[in-house]
């Protein structure tokens, strides 16, 4: 009963073109007369995990917010199976873990996770036994079983992050958007959260789009990496194709070494003297290209 609908698109994929869970086509967003996204194209298959990376201000969060319908955009964003344009319908297909979630004062973990059932139960109705069963299962799966009677405020950073993830999973959507899910977590907890997302993706066929700052983590988890720079996707592909010294220098203005590792490229900042502080673009141009 509680089984998560695995993205049915996977089966379609075998006899024909793989099905797209999310199809973003020439999406442009202007906020306060600043063009934040300038024609973004990105297609994500059902069950795929794509990490969106890019420097601060590149528009990563805005891209996720556009998929959620939180900002007005031009272009089109298709979500598999979603025909209805109402918010509650969208919330049954896409769940969101924001970078800095609002922690409601005094709210118990059980009630917080049950908020994820809002798009299914309707905003005026009480939770059904099914809703509570789903929430209980999610709490157990995320090792939060003992926390349900505590307030979200009283949890540690790692526990909070799992609680927010639990709320998103209780929504039982095919697509989950994670905005910097590892900020404010130590290395161990960063790994825990991403491993958890990975195993949930395998169990439930989730489609994951995440933004990540840590490039090594972005290479290790997920299938593809998309580089968003100045409002456009400039590269998208396997981590070892995309995460090169040149790409990172050009778009992040950072000098790094990329070490090949069987599990994916490892990105290490180098202690090379920084070029005089000019704009990142010109700094990048002056760097030697990858040997």
């Amino acid at each position, binding site marked *: 009963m509680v089984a998560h609908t695995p993205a049915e698109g996977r089966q379609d994929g075998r006899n024909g073109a793989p099905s797209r869970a999310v199809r973003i086509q020439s999406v442009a967003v202007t906020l306060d007369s600043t063009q934040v996204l300038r024609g973004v194209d990105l297609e994500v298959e059902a069950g795929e995990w794509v990490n969106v990376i890019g420097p601060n201000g590149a528009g990563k969060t805005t891209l996720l917010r556009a998929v959620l319908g939180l900002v007005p955009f031009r272009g089109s964003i298709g979500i598999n199976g979603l025909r209805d344009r109402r918010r509650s319908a969208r919330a049954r297909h896409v769940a969101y873990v924001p970078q800095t979630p609002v922690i409601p004062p005094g*709210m*118990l973990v059980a009630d917080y996770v049950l908020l994820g059932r809002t798009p299914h139960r309707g905003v*005026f109705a009480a939770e059904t036994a099914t809703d509570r069963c789903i929430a209980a299962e999610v709490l157990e799966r995320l090792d939060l*079983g003992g926390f349900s009677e505590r307030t979200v405020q009283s949890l540690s950073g790692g526990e909070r992050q799992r609680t927010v993830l639990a709320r998103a999973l209780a929504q039982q959507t095919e697509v989950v958007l994670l905005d910097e899910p590892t900020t404010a977590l130590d290395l161990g907890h960063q790994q825990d959260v991403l491993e958890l997302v990975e195993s949930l993706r395998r169990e439930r066929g989730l489609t994951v789009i995440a933004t990540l700052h840590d490039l090594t983590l972005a290479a290790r988890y997920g299938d593809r990496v998309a580089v968003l720079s100045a409002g456009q996707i400039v590269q998208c592909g396997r981590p070892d194709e995309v995460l090169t010294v040149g790409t990172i220098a050009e778009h992040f203005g950072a000098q790094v070494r990329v070490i090949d590792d069987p599990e994916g490229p490892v990105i290490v900042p180098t202690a090379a003297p920084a070029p005089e502080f000019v704009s990142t673009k010109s700094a990048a141009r002056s760097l030697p290209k990858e040997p």
Partner: protein
Amino acid sequence: MADARAPFVSDRTGVTLRATDLRLRQLGIGLAAVVVAVVAGLTIGPVGIAAHRVLLELADMLPGLALDSGLSDAHAAIVRELRLPRVVLGLLVGATLSMSGATYQAAFRNPLADPYLLGIAAGAGLGATIAITSNLGDGAGALDPVPLAAFAGGLVAVTVSYAAGHLGGRSTASLILAGIAVASFLTACQTYVLQANSDAFRRIIAWILGRIATSGWSEPALMLPYFVVTAAVVLRYRRALDVLAVGDEEATALGVNPRRVRLIVVLAASLAAAAAVSVSGLIGFVGIIVPHTVRLAFGASNRVVLPLSVLFGGAFMVLADLVARTVLSPAELPIGVVTAFLGAPFFVLVLRTTRREVW
């Protein structure tokens, strides 16, 4: 609404999951507070009347019951015609102000919000001041212009604040700031009118300080429909207000339209608050301390806070009115003085003795 569901235990995982909802025990405590306040309000006064006789007299008023309370006609009249309407008005005004306060706090996610946040008090104050100073058909009998002017002034203020706040931006902060601007402007107007008519000073100050005074059943009857409509709307939205607790953006991602929810509940709460102000003047502090005391005692969920604020707000106001009319009897203290004088120390005590984090 009360729901005494057993804790849910998942048969698959064995995890116990209890959703917060109003429990029968909590509802019982709230109702008990109301009964105690009502009986005290009917029993205590210049003429002492035994509690059991009051209860019999009340039961006698129920249709289909004919009981002899043993009260003389004069005492029965005191209970039925003087004290009962006043107690009922106290219940309605107290319930309205604390329910509206709880609603404002949830809708704006701000613990300092009260029903006067968007300028109701200033608008009603200006309306009442103009009506009093211009001596509009004073005592003409049919319709007292003061409450009408206060009601209209309060609603105009809220409407202007809401319109201005939405022009200013999308955040609740811009709405609150608009409310502050509107309130300051209207208070300035009121002060000007007041200065120009210093002979009406005492009447205006008396109106502002508030009172639970009745002449028969007309005030409770006026208040009742506003209370019923607002309570129905706000209680229906109690779960939606819990969703708003995660902020507008996350509420939207959960499929809720936060601006629509806020508009509906704030307008409903303002309507009843304006009605309460128009019959009772500006009774401060109730809309803040009652909801917060309920939160500290029973938890932060609006499923619990809203219904219990109705009950405890009503009970608190009846008791405050009891103090207001007995302490200096036969003179009466302004009730706003009592609510703050008793309410503030009590609230500090609650704050100091509770460990619960609700805000």
